[in-house]
């Protein structure tokens, strides 16, 4: 048997049923007094899912919230057992499911690395050998011997990720975690993931960022309410998924907008004031996430303030699906000060002639204070924007600059 042919992970007819207790009894009194009325509903997180993850491939899982992606990851990691069916992983699985959840707060970063290594089945010697690269990767040289309870959340994440990727995994499982951390760390994570790919590590990841999935993954599986809808080449499956999400929105079958699909995981902020909705209004003033290149367009950002908020600043950022930052703008740059706000309202950004060329974009929307330092709400890469071709015949690159061409032709006499 050759290693090439055997899949790294075999998932065969997997169904996972959870019992949802309306009120789970964790104490004796309840267990005794309400014995007869034990209410539970069966909830199928996964239904009869069969798929193979090929050795050395990077595999993405996409789908709505609650579609069973995370459950499937937990089954692959062996944390839960399938109700029926089998999950077989050939190789040492390193999972990064919850950030730093495996750390003991009183112990130092170094001791926690040893503990995590032991869980992954590595000897003390092997962990010690990887220690330097873990410390370097996490950038925690000064803090590695302090108890992790004093770490910031960013430090937690960095150490957790550094452990997961540096302890020589054969199969790496990542659940929507790379989105955390600063730009520079994210870039290092991606570089490292590419490195692991080249070394033939099998990677399974869940992400709501379709751009990321398309860039990183060879193959993608699309889960819909616990059932496998489609599996295949990354571009093909993500496009099919996008198409359906857009259609569902157009037909209003779903109260979830396309925007919601990308949301949740990428949300940050203190939420005194929140962004409730972002609408993209086309030239006819109608909503829909399709705008037309070169024509009038408005981004309408709805907010709701839970308490009076002084001088909030609304800003947007536009990214390509491959995460190239196209442009960003905010109210303060234009001197727009709306004073103290309470309740809800909306802010429009209007473009006379939308300079984006046709394609798919991801929009980030944020509300900060006047100094821009404090984030009230941030929806990172959360809103999907489609730009359709307009009247102008030809487009090059990402954006069209508002340019004039002037020729000065000197004729010799």
């Amino acid at each position, binding site marked *: 048997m050759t290693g090439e042919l055997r899949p790294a992970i075999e998932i065969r007819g997997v169904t996972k049923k959870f019992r949802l207790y309306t009120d789970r009894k964790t104490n004796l009194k309840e267990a005794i007094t309400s014995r007869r009325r034990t209410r539970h509903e069966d909830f199928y997180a996964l239904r009869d899912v069969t798929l193979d993850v090929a050795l050395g491939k990077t595999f993405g899982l996409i789908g709505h919230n609650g579609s069973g992606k995370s459950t499937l990851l937990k089954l692959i990691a062996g944390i839960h057992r399938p109700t029926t069916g089998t999950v077989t992983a050939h190789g040492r699985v390193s999972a990064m499911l919850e950030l730093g*959840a*495996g750390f003991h707060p*009183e*112990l130092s970063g170094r001791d926690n690395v040893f503990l995590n290594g*032991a*869980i992954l089945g590595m000897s003390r010697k092997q962990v010690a050998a990887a220690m330097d690269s873990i410390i370097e990767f996490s950038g925690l040289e000064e803090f590695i011997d302090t108890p992790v309870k004093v770490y910031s959340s960013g430090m937690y994440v960095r150490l957790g990720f550094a452990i997961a990727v540096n302890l020589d995994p054969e199969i790496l499982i990542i659940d929507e975690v790379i989105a955390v951390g600063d730009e520079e760390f994210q870039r290092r994570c991606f570089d490292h993931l590419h490195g692991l790919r080249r070394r033939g590590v099998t990677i399974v990841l869940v992400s709501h960022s379709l751009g990321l999935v398309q860039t990183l993954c060879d193959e993608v599986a699309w889960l819909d309410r616990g059932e496998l809808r489609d599996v295949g080449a990354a571009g093909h499956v993500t496009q099919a998924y996008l198409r359906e999400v857009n259609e569902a929105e157009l037909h209003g079958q779903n109260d979830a907008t396309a925007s919601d699909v990308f949301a949740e995981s990428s949300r940050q902020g203190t939420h005194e004031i929140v962004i409730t909705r972002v609408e993209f209004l086309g030239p006819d003033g109608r909503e829909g996430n399709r705008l037309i290149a070169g024509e009038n367009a408005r981004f309408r950002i709805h907010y709701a303030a839970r308490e009076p908020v002084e001088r909030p600043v609304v800003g947007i950022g536009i990214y390509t699906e491959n995460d190239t930052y196209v442009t960003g703008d905010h109210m303060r740059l234009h001197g727009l000060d709306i004073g103290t706000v309470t309740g809800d309202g909306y802010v429009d950004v209007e473009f006379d002639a939308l300079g984006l060329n046709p394609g798919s974009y991801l929009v980030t929307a944020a509300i900060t204070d006047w100094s821009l330092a404090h984030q009230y709400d941030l929806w990172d890469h959360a809103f999907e924007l489609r730009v359709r071709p307009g009247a102008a015949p030809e487009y090059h690159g990402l954006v069209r600059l508002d340019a004039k061409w002037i020729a000065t032709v000197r004729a010799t006499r």
Partner: protein
Amino acid sequence: MVQLVQPTRWHAGLVGNFASRELKSRFKGSVLGWGWSLINPLATLAVYSLVFGFFLKFPPPVAGNGHLKNFSIYLFTALVLWNFFFAVVTGSMGALIGAGPLLRKIYFPPWTPIAGSAIAALAQTGIELGLLIVVYIAVGNISWTVVFVPILLALLVAFSLGLGFVLALLNAKLRDVNYLVQVGLNLLFYACPIIYPIAKVQEVVHNHPWARIYYWNPLTQFIEANRDVLYDLRAPSLGRMAYLTIVSLVVLFAGWAYFERGSRDVSEEL
């Protein structure tokens, strides 16, 4: 069915790490550090000695060397075993709950944190037993029977761990178990001849049928056996050793079997 584990290096590494995690975090941040591991039991010993030995004048029997008659030593000989039993039973429940965040994150056998916490308790007991034996040597009350001590300790490990497995799993399903056990242990402490000589009980309820339960309590037997070999300097009776061996192994394997069956989905309960 009872499934025997084949301890691999993976399991050994895990158990070792859980044990060291518990030991390292136990006295972190305290100035005296490991000093507390001796101060704690000695303080308890001092209180009991004062109340029961001095005020209430519980008479300790004469020891095996014919002249030693010391209540504190007599008491500590029993207290060492009790402390270990107590630490393993309560530690098991804490260890499984404490490993919850990890178990939800990645797979490893859920018995390993429990075994790790038992090893941490064993380290503490090792220190206490060492101190006790040093004291016995100092007062000149020591004999070959000391070789029974490791055997008794091994049996007690099996007994306590078996019970610990069951209680840890029950506690994961129903958090009341922890409190119930605390109450039970409080009662059990006085239901064992720890602070009083067993002779006192025999005087009062010699032939009462319920006294049987008292005598057949494995902890009573463990404590009496330890006093046999360390205080009275005689080998425990064959019947006592046979009883302890059988009970300990049955409890260990029954507890293990129950835990193995029940712990497969424990990550969903934590």
